[in-house]
Structures are given as C-alpha cells and as structure tokens.
C-alpha cells in the first residue's frame, strides 16, 4: 500500500518536502515505517528523537497502518 507521510520542521527539511509517499506492505507497523524512513533519510535517525503520529495521535511502533491514515513525522517539538 502507498502511505502518504507529512513532515514538519527539521523533518520537512530532511525530506526536502512537506509530504512524501512511500510504499509499504499491507498491515505494516509504525516501526516498519520508521526503519524504512531512517534508511532512506539517514539524517532522520540522527535527530535527538522523533515521533510518528497517526491520524493526529502519537503512535507507538507497534501500531498498524492503513492506507488512508494521515501519518506525520514529528521531530522534537519546541513550541511556547
């Protein structure tokens, strides 16, 4: 399945775009997506940390993805 991933802040700059598409097998997990993104964009793995959000909720690596999920890469937040 194709998963659209949106990215913010430094992650947007690392991806070179606010949205990328990536191909994942059906029922792939957030953890799988993380590994795949870190392989494709090594600078992502060098951040202090980052989270993945699925449909606007922080998602642990075990969470399973579906084709229409809104998936976002959340680098360390720094609001306020």
């Amino acid at each position, binding site marked *: 399945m194709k998963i659209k991933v*949106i990215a*913010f*802040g*430094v992650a*947007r*700059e690392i991806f070179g775009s606010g949205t990328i598409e990536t191909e994942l097998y059906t029922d792939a997990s957030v953890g799988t997506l993380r590994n795949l993104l870190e392989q494709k964009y090594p600078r992502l793995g*060098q*951040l*202090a940390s980052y989270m993945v*959000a699925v449909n*606007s*909720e*922080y998602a642990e690596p075990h969470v399973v993805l579906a084709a229409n999920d809104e998936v*976002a890469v*959340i*680098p*360390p*937040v*720094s*609001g*306020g």
Partner: protein
Amino acid sequence: MTEIKLTPLPIDVTYCVNAVMSPAAGGIDVFIGTVRDQTKQKKVLRLEFEAYEKMAISEMEKIAASAFAKWPLLKVLLHHRTGVLEVGEVPVVIAVAAAHRDAAFEACRYIIDTLKQTVPIWKKEVFEDGEVWVAAHP
C-alpha cells in the same frame, strides 16, 4: 470553559485576560512567552514557528482537559502564534482562572510545561549567521 487558538496574527494579551475573568474567580495566572533577543549568548534576529495545526489543537485540548481534571479551575485559555516573530513578540499566552490562586498558578505552569513537551509546534531560531530548529539535534 476552554479557549484554544493557533493564529498567524499577534496575540491580544488583554483579550486573553478578559476572556478568563469570572465573578467566581479569585485569582488568574497568565503566562506570556516572549521572543528573547539571545539564546546561549547568540543574538537572535527572529523566530519562525510552524505547527501541525490539527494535531496541535487537539494536543492543546488534551492538556486543558487534563488541567481541569487535576485542579479546580474555572477557565483556561491557550493562544499560540505561528509564522515569523520578531524579538519582543509573544509566541504564547496561557491564562488560567480559578477560585483560589494555588490552582491557577499550578495549572498554568503545568500547561506551559506540557505544551513544550507534547504539542506539535516547532520553532526555528534565526541568527545573523544561520538558523537552527530548536531541540532538533542532540
């Protein structure tokens, strides 16, 4: 009552204070973030704030709900800016009204501390010789 706003326009501090006023309130604590002219001895020209808007709002709503669950509060307001902010401008205002000041102070502190940990908003510091996403790198 909770009022949450993410806005590219200047935050009106007076509006924020008035919005949480209440005849049942004995104390209001207001935290106002301001853009500092330096960070680690380096001169800051401006900040640029970016937000994952939909999620930022839902995370701010969660924080407010959790503050209401922890303390006896009357009203909570969170306004956060996006876009380019010059030195002295206000990225965030948090206003909390309660019958007693202990709850207002503690909840206000909790809200800003938690906002800085969980709300998907990012700031880039722009210096004379470059720029950096705050907290991005170890």
